[in-house]
């Protein structure tokens, strides 16, 4: 009887799976992400925008220190400050006065540099619409279980952010790009941080779920820089990112600080502008989202409880010439034959069935073949199609049999003499 099973979907109830693996799943899976990505963009060029590059590099440094590897960071710097002709200390980018902290170390990996940082490339990275020749390091290969941190800094205005002094990205385009990411399930949760003038206008138009946004200033306010360094001659950092960096220096990979602490970074007394944040699109409570959910990369791990026993396979391969193995195979085949006979209404005469093992080595194992509870007799020679086969294949019994036959005939012939 054939059963055809129909399985109609979009049903509203789930069958309760009553397997309790509380201890296995643990608290690790509460955030729902398995990997972290970061997209850090500095959009302005020219030497006097040194602070924007320093901003981006200090966030890059924190993110790397907390565990996100370079393969998961897309760093876009619109200008090269470390090797700029006007840099009195080449190959360095400082974030603190008196050159306390060099954020341009030996292992900075810039993915998009100089004129490659454009609105088009930024949107292409976010939406994934890159030409097929783009290498892996320039792509955002996130999936539906990735938490992404996006940090933008530069010169901005009410509803736009300036790229490269000649083009701008509007808040509508940014919101649409995030919506396309959501449609293709390219993120699990997204944290958007922007440090520009009137930064809060850039997150006003967001409408996709699971987005949290922070900005350094409200609409109508300017985001100010922190402090100049007289030796280098430019302002080194913006205030918001300076205090953000100080906050992140206290975070280590096992830290339990949550996003509500991040909202308190740089109050108006320190920042002069009023930092803002937006959490209405974020599905979890911000107090339960850890800083390391976005800035770090804490892997979930599970202990491997099972293994596959492959040593039996080796024994199988090594015992191919074992007589036991062979007898088992023969028994198997004979059983199959018997089943076929029975299914086709034929009967096998087990009394007349014999078996013989050809070969040279003498086996002292007790060899038996049993079919249908009847032991099959072992013989050492057998007549088959007029030839007597013996188990050693030396043909002595056949010759003897022939001699016997001929002897009879010769005997009769001799009588006729």
């Amino acid at each position: 009887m054939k059963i055809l099973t129909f399985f109609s979907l979009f049903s509203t109830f789930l069958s309760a799976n009553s397997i309790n693996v509380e201890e296995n799943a643990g608290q690790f899976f509460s955030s729902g992400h398995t990997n972290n990505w970061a997209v850090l963009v500095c959009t302005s060029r020219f030497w006097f925008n040194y602070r924007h590059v320093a901003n981006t590099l200090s966030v890059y440094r924190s993110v790397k220190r907390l565990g996100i590897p370079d393969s998961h960071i897309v760093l876009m710097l619109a200008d090269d400050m470390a090797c700029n002709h006007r840099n009195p200390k080449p190959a360095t980018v400082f974030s603190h006065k008196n050159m306390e902290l060099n954020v341009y170390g030996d292992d900075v990996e810039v993915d998009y540099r100089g004129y490659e940082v454009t609105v088009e490339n930024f949107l292409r990275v976010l939406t994934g619409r890159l030409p097929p020749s783009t290498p892996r390091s320039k792509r955002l290969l996130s999936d539906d279980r990735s938490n992404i941190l996006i940090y933008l800094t530069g010169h901005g205005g009410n509803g736009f952010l300036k790229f490269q002094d000649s083009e701008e990205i509007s808040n509508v385009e940014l919101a649409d790009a995030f919506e396309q990411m959501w449609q293709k399930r390219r993120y699990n949760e997204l944290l958007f941080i922007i440090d520009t003038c009137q930064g809060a206008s850039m997150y006003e138009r967001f409408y996709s779920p699971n987005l949290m946004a922070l900005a350094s200033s409200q609409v109508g306010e300017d985001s100010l820089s922190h402090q100049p360094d007289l030796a280098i001659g430019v302002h080194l950092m913006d205030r918001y990112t300076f205090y953000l960096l100080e906050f992140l220096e206290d975070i280590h990979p096992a830290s339990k600080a949550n996003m509500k602490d991040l909202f308190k970074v740089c109050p108006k007394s320190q920042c002069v502008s009023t930092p803002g944040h937006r959490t209405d699109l974020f599905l979890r409570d911000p107090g339960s989202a850890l800083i390391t959910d976005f800035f770090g990369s804490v892997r979930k791990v599970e202990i491997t409880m099972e293994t596959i026993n492959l040593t039996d396979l080796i024994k199988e391969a090594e015992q191919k010439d074992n007589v036991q193995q062979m007898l088992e195979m023969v028994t198997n085949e004979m059983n199959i034959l018997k089943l076929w006979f029975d299914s086709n209404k034929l009967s096998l005469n087990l009394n007349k069935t014999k078996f013989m093992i050809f070969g040279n080595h003498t086996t002292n194992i007790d060899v038996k073949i049993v079919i249908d509870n009847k032991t099959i007799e072992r013989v050492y020679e057998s007549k088959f199609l007029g030839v007597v086969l013996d188990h050693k294949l030396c043909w002595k019994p056949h010759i003897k049999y022939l001699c016997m036959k001929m002897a009879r005939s010769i005997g009769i012939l001799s009588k006729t003499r």
Partner: protein
Amino acid sequence: MKSLLIGQMSLKRKGVSHTRPEDLTKSRRRGQLAALSIAAVVIMVGVPLWWRTTETYRAWLPVSQINELANMQLQLSADVEVVFARGTVTPEQQKKVPLTQTQDEEHTVDGDLIFKAVCDPMVTKYEDCKLIHADLSLHTLSESPCGSLVVYVIPESSSLLPEDMDVYIGQRRTALLRIGAQMRVGRTVEQLLAHLEPRIKQVLQVMSFSHTDITAALSDRVRLSPGNKESIADSMRAFKSSPGYEITFSLLNPDPKSHRLHWDIEGAVQTYIQPLLTKLAPVANFSLDSQTLYYAMLGVNPRFDSSSSAYTLNSDSLAHVINPVEARLGSNAASSNPVLNFLLYVPDAHHSPLYIHDNKKQEVPSNAFHSPRWGGIMVYNVNGFYRPEAVLPVDININMAKVMGVFLAQLRLLLGVQSSTAPPGFLMAPCGSTGLADWELDRLMWSRSVENVATATTTITSLAQLLDQIGNIVINDNIAEQVSSAVTSLQLAVAELEAGNLGFALQYSKEAIMASERAFFDPSLLHLLYFPDDQKFAIYIPLFLPMCVPILLSLLKIVSEARQKRREKQAKKD
């Protein structure tokens, strides 16, 4: 010169004083005609021309079919054959058992299969061997196509299964089901069938697909609230369906001064991993590579446990092991396929032996752990292979069978071959030499097909929505072609799923997903053409205003003159 000037002046004077009323109307009419014809040309020719040249090219998309796809219902059907062994149904009842499908009559009720023949006294010591023989011999009787099952119903008195087990699930697509005790005395065919149906359904849920599997596979399309922790963990652990995967085996040797490690990775991959990957070929392509990393340390310091005189890593610190190592693992720059990393870590001589402890401070037998959607790490202790006073560096050959056993188990988990705990009363055969039973492959294929269909549908519908919303994205012909082929493949895949042809369904669903991804991620679909309305006005007004104002004014003048004339005519009539 003088005469010319005088002539001109006289002409001028003549012109002013000698204009006749007819000349005036003629010139006015000429002016009116000119204005009207210019307006006509602008409206008839100019406006359509401007419209066509500023239009973005949008190839036709099968929008109605896409909308249909969004609302379709999936139907999965699996063929199950149920074979009754001798002793389960009486001969009279044999004739009464209904055959809902009339194919393969030989394998149904009329085929009396004799199981006792397999009870081989020679191998009574291995219970499983008996079952495996039964299983294999049955398999050769009926080679079931992928996606279908054969369930053999055996009498209650049969000694094939151990006492407390009722169902045996074999390596191939067969299962043995023992009839319950209550079905022995005075039962009718209907009772028998009613008894069997839920049990066969349970077998089907384990071997083919269950409700939770399908809902998990559809999580892309239908965002359901998470059921329980186990289903979240399962859905997070396995990689998403992708046309290809890259598998990298890495040997980490932090102490080359003490250990000179040799591992026959090529041979091991050929013997143990390749059969599994060949079997999984319909699901995805795999590319393998291996590397050895020297002086690669773990990021955490293991603690010395004096009770077992060994170093331990407890489960909390395992989470921080992967990140420092990951920076040193390379990956293939050319492909964007997901990467599975399998690391074999041999602890340095000062920190040997190293054991992993779980939450309950118990040693883990496999000494390995894995991270969802990333890969696995195994710690291999070599301190037992040489004496402490041996001359360093010591040559060590790694036992690849043990290592590959662990990696194979991790690979199965990461690819989504769930080894969910069997329901009570079920006995599972150990998976064969390839590491994957046929029915497990079927299960994977079911969930992959459904997942592919769901993802492709989401991609196509969101693409259609996006292109609809943003009016000025250019849709090239190749994108329209990809979308059409994706829609066709999707419809075919759904039809094959309904018919139960699992192999074809998976193939069509893979084609659908590749075409839809190619269409969605085409580099030309970038909308950079968002212009706020005030910017649009700012562009067009300087172009069109100087041209349109005189035309409009002259048209107004014509209209007002015509009205005036009509008023005069009416006044005249009166």
